[in-house]
């Protein structure tokens, strides 16, 4: 129930923010070609889009529509907002899922080892690599990785190679699809892994010092069992939070990565919709992103309850 005020607040915030931006979609539409346009054309455009109507009418319309999952049509393309989002959603989702898989499969084992071998060279190496991952701008990694692929293939085969730039869905051509999505997923996954790895390490360290682990060790239980059955499960709690929050962020948060890799995803759509001053599309996108954030919080809570029976869902 607490999600409702958050959604309403976010809806109101985006509604007001968009309208505070000077100019409007008609100026962008008529002017972006670089040629000049007449006031007459501007008026016709305004009339067509209905931009002059009172804010309160537009606001109530937006809310009433949102309640019925109807966000209207995009002011830019005239297509339903839902359809515009649906075109881009699979790309973002795919990169987010792939990056999460990459991150989790790197972060949890390495984080655990790092904690167990605290202050050895392995720990130092893992920590250095992970801090470097957090410290480098992700777009930078992206640009460099594309160039790296181009240069390496040119050096080896004489012909520079890069993945196709014409995206196809996974079910149509899995190989081409994966070749397109792999690099962005790796660059995003690296930073994501770095964050989760640090979290795993510190959570693990904390758990390892708990009394029950020490008791288990004193009782002579096998180290493997201690780690797998007792320590890791408890240490995963904060890690799951980080993964949940990061995942929600990835949908729509990959603005820069989608730009670098020319992916037609939600993040790029957000930038476009604000730049085009497309009120309806931006509003729909914000509702979507906030809903995802809220839902993923809920999922994290459920997962918590499953991992730690002491926590009761209230």
């Amino acid at each position, binding site marked *: 129930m607490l999600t409702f*005020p*958050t959604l309403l607040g976010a809806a109101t915030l985006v509604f007001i923010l*968009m309208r505070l*931006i000077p100019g409007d979609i008609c100026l962008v539409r008529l002017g972006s070609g670089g040629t000049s346009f007449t006031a007459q054309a501007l008026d016709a455009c305004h009339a067509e889009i209905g931009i002059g109507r009172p804010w309160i009418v537009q606001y109530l319309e937006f809310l009433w529509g949102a309640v019925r999952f109807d966000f209207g049509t995009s002011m830019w393309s005239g297509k339903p907002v839902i359809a515009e989002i649906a075109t881009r959603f699979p790309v973002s989702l795919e990169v987010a899922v792939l990056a999460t898989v990459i991150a989790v499969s790197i972060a949890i084992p390495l984080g655990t080892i790092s904690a167990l071998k*605290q202050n050895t060279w392995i720990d130092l190496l893992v920590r250095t690599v992970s801090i470097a991952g957090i410290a480098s*701008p992700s777009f*930078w990694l992206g640009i460099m990785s594309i160039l790296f692929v181009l240069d390496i293939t040119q050096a080896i085969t004489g012909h520079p190679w890069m993945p196709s730039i014409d995206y196809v869905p996974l079910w149509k051509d899995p190989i081409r699809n994966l070749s397109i999505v792999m690099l962005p997923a790796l660059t995003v996954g690296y930073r994501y892994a770095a964050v989760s790895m640090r979290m795993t390490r510190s959570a693990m360290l904390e758990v390892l010092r708990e009394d029950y682990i020490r008791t288990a060790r004193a009782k002579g239980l096998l180290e493997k069992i201690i780690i797998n059955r007792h320590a890791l499960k408890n240490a995963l709690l904060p890690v799951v939070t980080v993964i949940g929050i990061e995942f929600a962020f990835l949908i729509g948060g990959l603005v820069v990565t989608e730009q670098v890799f020319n992916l037609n995803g939600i*993040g790029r759509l957000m*930038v476009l919709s604000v730049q085009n001053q497309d009120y309806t599309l931006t509003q729909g996108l914000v509702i979507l992103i906030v809903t995802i954030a809220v839902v993923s919080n809920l999922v994290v809570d459920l997962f918590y309850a499953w991992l730690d029976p002491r926590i009761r869902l209230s």
Partner: protein
Amino acid sequence: MTDLAPTPTSAAAFVDDTYVAPRGVVATSMRFLRRQPVGAIGMVIVVVFGFCGLFADWLAPYSPTSNDFAAMTEPPSWAHWLGTDQLGRDILSRILFGARTAFIVGITSAVVGGFSGLVLGVGSAYFGGRIDLILQRILDIVMSFPLIIMALAVVSIFGTGIHNVIVAITIPLIPRCSRVVRSSALAIREVPYVDAARALGYGHSRIILNHMVPNVVAPFLIMLTSFVGQAILAEASLSYLGLGVQEPVAAWGLMLQGGAEEYASTAPWIAVFPGLAIMLTVFGINLFGDSLRDVLDPKMRER
């Protein structure tokens, strides 16, 4: 790191021990340097770049903004240690001045965002009830709101420039800081001495300042450090999207945008050095922050 003094039993005791004790800043730093060599490396990196930023006017061999069409895209040489960019501007000079911009953006955002979060978090925890509820809901909204839309809107409304970049970066930091501070503060609020202080008729401000704030200082400082790094990275990302600091101001993110991408394979020095500057600085800040956490967070202390 294993020779640390006995672990204090509570955060309060520890914080008093390190920060309120009249041992002096120098002595405390020296102790930190000795016991956290990795953190010390981080600190040295940060101090070096901070020094560059502060004294850029004296250190920089050239003006960071003046174009030199006779020396466009020149590779590193004795005249230009790090080469020149496509407008013939000396990259070393721009990196030195860029350090200033980076620290202005990083520290201002972190401090403003951090302290606003601190005030809101402690206030929310202390007063509780309706104030807490409303504040938390507002922060929920800001936290779940897509950052990019916020940043784009701020920049579209006010225009690009260093002040607006700082605003765009600071806003999302506030709720994150306030969350952490609030939960630490809530734990203290239930401690009997706060009730006792209240019963004795101490004023709100006195209780908050004397009892609650010291107890949240540790997580707060750790967060503040990581905010500085995050803000520097955020500035770079915003610049990449054309929403950052504006030309001809020297800023690392800006140096990576546009031109750097264009020349990444023909004149790599244009792109490599500012990228390295960002990486090194944020790396240093994070190293320092990690060690700070090891020192400040009693739970994380090694035995």
